[in-house]
């Protein structure tokens, strides 16, 4: 048996984990499971496609960073797209979730997010049709790295990026005031106000960061697979499974949960074929809820 599935699983898992970090943050601070998070991923990918297109249209084509398939436009455009996706999340909050926070129960926000998710996805289909799009059509040669495993340079770069992002998030949450404030609001919003934290500002920061992280997963997915309006929504179940597996609110938990889901999916593909891949996340989710609902690293249930 080739160990290639392990590498593929770890890569898919890093991608799922990055998405789940954003989901677990918004869940633990805003206290509802946000079904639009998958669509932030899709929007992030399309926004990056747009910014990269605009940059190369404005300055002209740029050289690739060999051996990768992308050059500096993707890096600059990606950063721009991260900001734009964060703004999109912020806008949606202002238009929909903020008024509902004032009046409704938490679960009404889940319904609203389900509706908004569909609208966001259909909007992408309206704008770009459901035909797949690509950042680059350059063919990547997979390089053998030993043990019979082959990895493309883009995949390696994305793994590195995922690691950098997670470490940055960890530092943000433990070393900066806004990060500590986010943890404080997540644990006890009333006490957070008592110690002088502006909860509204923390919520804004959470949407910005959650949106930006979703954009990163969208770019990773777009760079290594393809860009479709459905791409993020199809990732939603693995994201939920990863967030629950790791424990709501735990950044490292979300990443490890993502890696577990990714490897389990790749393993299932190896053993029973690719047809039932998307059911694997569901099985993991149910198993975790039955055995340990607070997750591997969670401090409380939800």
């Amino acid at each position, binding site marked *: 048996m080739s160990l290639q599935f392990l590498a593929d699983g770890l890569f898919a898992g890093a991608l799922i984990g990055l998405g789940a970090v954003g989901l677990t943050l918004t*869940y633990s*601070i*805003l*206290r*509802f*499971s946000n*079904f639009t998070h998958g669509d932030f991923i899709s929007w992030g990918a399309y926004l990056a496609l747009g910014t990269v297109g605009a940059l190369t249209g404005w300055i002209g084509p740029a050289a690739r960073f060999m051996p990768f398939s992308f050059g500096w436009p993707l890096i600059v455009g990606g950063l721009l797209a991260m900001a734009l996706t964060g703004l999109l999340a912020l806008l949606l909050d202002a238009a*929909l979730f*903020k*008024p*509902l*926070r*004032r*009046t*409704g*129960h*938490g*679960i*009404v*926000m*889940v*319904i*609203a997010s*389900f*509706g*908004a998710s*569909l*609208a*966001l996805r*259909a*909007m992408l*289909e*309206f704008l770009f*049709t*459901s035909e797949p799009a690509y950042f680059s059509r350059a063919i990547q040669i997979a390089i053998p790295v030993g043990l019979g495993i082959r990895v493309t340079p883009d995949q390696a770069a994305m793994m590195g990026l995922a690691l950098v992002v997670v470490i940055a998030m960890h530092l943000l949450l433990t070393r900066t005031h806004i990060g500590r404030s986010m943890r404080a*609001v997540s644990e006890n*919003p009333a006490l957070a106000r008592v110690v002088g934290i502006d*909860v*509204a500002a923390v*919520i804004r920061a959470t949407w910005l960061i959650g949106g930006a992280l979703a954009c990163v997963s969208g770019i990773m997915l777009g760079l290594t697979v393809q860009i479709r309006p459905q791409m993020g*929504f199809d990732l*939603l*179940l693995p994201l*939920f*499974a990863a967030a*629950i597996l790791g424990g709501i609110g735990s950044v490292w938990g979300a990443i490890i949960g993502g890696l577990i889901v990714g490897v389990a999916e790749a393993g299932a593909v190896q053993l029973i074929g690719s*047809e*039932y891949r*998307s*059911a694997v*996340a*569901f099985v993991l*989710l*149910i198993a975790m*809820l*039955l055995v340990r*609902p607070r997750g591997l690293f969670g401090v409380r*249930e*939800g």
Partner: protein
Amino acid sequence: MIDLLGYGAFFLVNALIFGVLCLGLNVQWGQTGLFNVGVAGFAAIGAYVSAILTTPDAADRIGGFGWPILAGWLAAMLVAGAAAALVGLATLRLRADYLAMTTFGIAVTIQVIALNATALTGGPFGIAFIPRPFSSLAETPIAFNAANLALTGFVVLGLFLILETLTRSPWGRVLRAIREDEAAAASLGKNVNFHRLQAFALGGAIMGLAGAMQAHFIGFIAPDNYLSILTFQVWAMLIVGGSGNNRGALIGAVIVWALWSLSSLAVGTFVAPAFQARAAALQIVAIGVALAAILLVRPRGLVGERATVSRDVEALAGESTSPHEPVRD
């Protein structure tokens, strides 16, 4: 004129079947406050179970037992209800969000099974030749549609009366008490989780019935019928009608299905074929925005719920804080 009447009957059968889905969701969400994002999954279970049991023997598929339609419907309710009970067992004791994720997951999983368990479900091509009620009348569409409307109307009326009776029964009052204030209901000595499980299974069974009714009326099913757009439509219907209200659930189903059909018709008639896919996408955006707007502006729906919450629980409800209380800013 005859054509129009025929179409009217056809439209109403479809709308009323959506009404059944809404009644099922209303038992879960409206009456008991249980969130289900997997409506499409439970409808699919009902549709496939009944189709597999009632279709004639087919060479390329397991199943084809040739059961009577009514037996297929009952089996659809049983299996969908049992599936709902299983999901409920795993998640009802947890936070409401987990139920949302799990029901979402089961809908995805059932979609995957329908798509890939070709030997059982026909795979992407689905199952055809599902027996249709009154198929002997199929030569004259108006008679066929009218007969089916009578049957569907009969089922909907019966279900409506049963659910109304249940709503007013002590059992229904306990459900609403749980929805309003779980802790208070528990303190009144009610087994909260068992009641919720019953409601969730009953709702799932009703959705299964609706799925089966739809499968038999159309005569053909495929995995694509059970995407999350179906769940979303049912939610929109219940929210327009006003959750907690059986009459509202049915009215909401007819209104939303009418709007949906009319806009589809308009897209088909006035939009050039090349742009139809895009126009259909815009149609979904519009209904998504409309749903969000209703949640914001008229959270109790257009019809709304009569105040039937028992007084003792209302009095208690003021003091406790719900575990699902959103964070305030």
